[in-house]
């Protein structure tokens, strides 16, 4: 780990239960669905970042629910351009701030540049622009709000949809069990760019999430945080269950919480007594068609991926 990254991470003002920020740069009154785990995650991101930030949004649920002209839920500068280019747009904002500060046109060296997108805007259509921005080393934070399908257009599968899940384009049928592929690991792809900071987070572990956001914003260079974001509408579960499933997904080791600092992997939640995956799967009707055989297959995959992750963290 480089000294500058360590210093930046150690230098953050740590969030604890006693000092959770009261600011709401993403204010209430937006149009998200009841129980939306994605807007909860984004709200926590913004609480951690405060107001000295410029936000670049990909097209998606979080864009439409927060910006129907002439209304806006944003207390901070917010820019939406298109679906697949949030990281590229953020590259431009970041470069502009760098050059304006260098030329003495402004004196705002500490503005955080945040780009966010859903799993479609990140893992699928926006993967190229994300990779480009990470590789070029822009000083920005990219947050993927992963609700595991194209929810804004009506619950179509993405490469981030988990194996077996029912979506409107991965319907289970006589010849299909639903989603036939395993979830793309975008956090690992981001880490392969050897950027200073990569992490995963869940809104059920809100303090952990906010501290990871602060670390991502603090490091010099690109940071990527992949946030699991329950969607009761698309996952077919009760809106009151969002935080519950966001906790269960970690407790079953399906979505491990970890961070990668300058290439060093570390579990941030060791899940010493994991629950069986069925505990998680049965909370959502998108999985209800799965047979015992398929559930066992998922359990085996989760166990194998966990072992591999633990090995990575041992180095």
């Amino acid at each position: 780990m480089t000294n500058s990254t360590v210093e930046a991470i150690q230098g953050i003002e740590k969030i604890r239960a006693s000092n959770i920020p009261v600011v709401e740069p993403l204010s209430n009154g937006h149009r998200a669905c009841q129980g939306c785990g994605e807007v909860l995650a984004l709200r926590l991101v913004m609480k951690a970042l405060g107001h000295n930030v410029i936000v670049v949004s990909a097209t998606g649920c979080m864009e439409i629910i927060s910006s129907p002209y002439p209304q806006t839920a944003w207390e901070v500068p917010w820019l939406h351009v298109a679906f697949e280019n949030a990281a590229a747009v953020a590259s431009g904002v970041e470069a502009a701030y760098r050059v304006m500060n260098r030329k003495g046109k402004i004196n705002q060296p500490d503005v955080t540049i945040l780009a966010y997108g859903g799993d479609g805007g990140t893992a699928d259509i926006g993967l190229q622009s994300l990779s480009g921005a990470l590789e070029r080393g822009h000083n920005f934070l990219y947050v993927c709000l992963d609700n595991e399908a194209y929810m804004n257009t009506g619950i179509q599968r993405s490469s981030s949809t988990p194996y077996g899940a029912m979506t409107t384009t991965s319907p289970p049928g006589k010849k299909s069990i639903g989603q036939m592929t395993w979830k793309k690991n975008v956090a690992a792809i981001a880490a392969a760019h050897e950027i200073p900071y990569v992490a995963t987070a869940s809104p059920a572990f809100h303090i952990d999430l906010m501290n990871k956001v602060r670390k991502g914003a603090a490091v010099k260079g690109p940071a990527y945080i992949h946030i699991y974001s329950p969607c009761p509408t698309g996952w077919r579960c009760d809106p009151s269950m969002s935080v519950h499933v966001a906790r269960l997904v970690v407790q079953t080791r399906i979505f491990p919480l970890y961070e990668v600092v300058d290439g060093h992997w570390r579990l941030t939640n060791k899940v010493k007594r994991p629950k069986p995956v069925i505990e998680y799967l049965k909370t959502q009707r998108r999985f209800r068609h799965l047979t015992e055989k398929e559930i066992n297959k998922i359990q085996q995959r989760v166990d194998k991926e966990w072992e591999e992750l633990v090995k990575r963290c041992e180095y």
Partner: protein
Amino acid sequence: MGKRVGIEVSLAVSHAVMLVDVDVIAAYPITPQTHIVEHLSELVADGELDAEFIPVESEHSAMSTSVGASAAGVRTFTATSSQGLALMVEIMYIASSLRLPIVMAVANRALSGPISIWNDHSDMMLSRDTGWIQTVAENGQEAFDLILHAYRVAEDPRVMLPMIVNLDGFTLSHMIEPIEFLSREEVNKYIRPYRAPLRMDPENPITMGPVGMPEVYTEAKKAQDEALKNSKEVIIEAWKEFGDLFGRYYSPVETYRMEDAETAIVIMGSLAETAMTAVDRMREKGKKVGIVRPRLFRPFPAQEIVSALENVNNVAVIDRALALNGMGGPFSFEIRSVLYDSGLHPYIKNYIAGLGGRDVTVENFTEIASDIEKCSREGVKPGYEIINVRE
């Protein structure tokens, strides 16, 4: 006034970009635009231009990064051609609707397929309705001057629209021409420091790019259309000021030997210089032929075109692109449209010429003039013809 220097036109374009002290350049390589951005990256590497040069991973990101930089309030530049422009188009519509004064040079090249790196105007036609102001250079001096003009116009608070300077790929971009440069001091008299009226700034937060519900979408598009139309006045004003300062005057539509012309060749870009040679030869033989060359393509200079053509019998519209709809080239539709509305009814024929780098010669233009006069005299049904097709 600076001295005349023999230089490749692409490098002159880069030099103009340097003179306006651009802040962010986002670019992706594509032939024949490459020399422009290569030279800019050299100027940045050598410390002659203090800018961020962002070597993005696609043209889509070049345009997106330019949008981000411009929204943050800095002067931006990019350049592309052909497929690169096609990839940018999605974001070009958004750049103009966000009213961001990005300037882009397009070294015009044919669109695939089949893949062709050579010159025509199919990329210009692809981007014609994106809401960008577009000018078209005829020669190297114009390319240099039009870049400066573009920044002056795009950033005018009455305009605030992105702008393209078109120059023919290879046949203009790669030519070595004598160009009269301007000094920084001279350029500073013409280009003011850019102050964005609205920008991404945590001290003054704004929301840019919100959802346009059906209640507001129509009004947003009408406002944009008005802004584009109104820009014409500023475009002309900025050319006049350029002329007053530097002695080179420009207008939306250039005419050549049109005083008593019976037949007009309407054409855009560097091929007009070949047409001029042809017109000179035809004039020597007593043929009354002239040229009408729009330098401004967007907003379309309808009024000036009508004025230029009001006394002619025949209008030969040269398209450097083919619209695959069975009706000819896109430029001809626009010329026909403005003439119909004006009540003028000359004989119009559309000639599709020089697709994908096919040479167009002086003789081709004399043939075109003879052909349209014959068709007009014999009452041949107007239409279009692709010339120089190998049998």
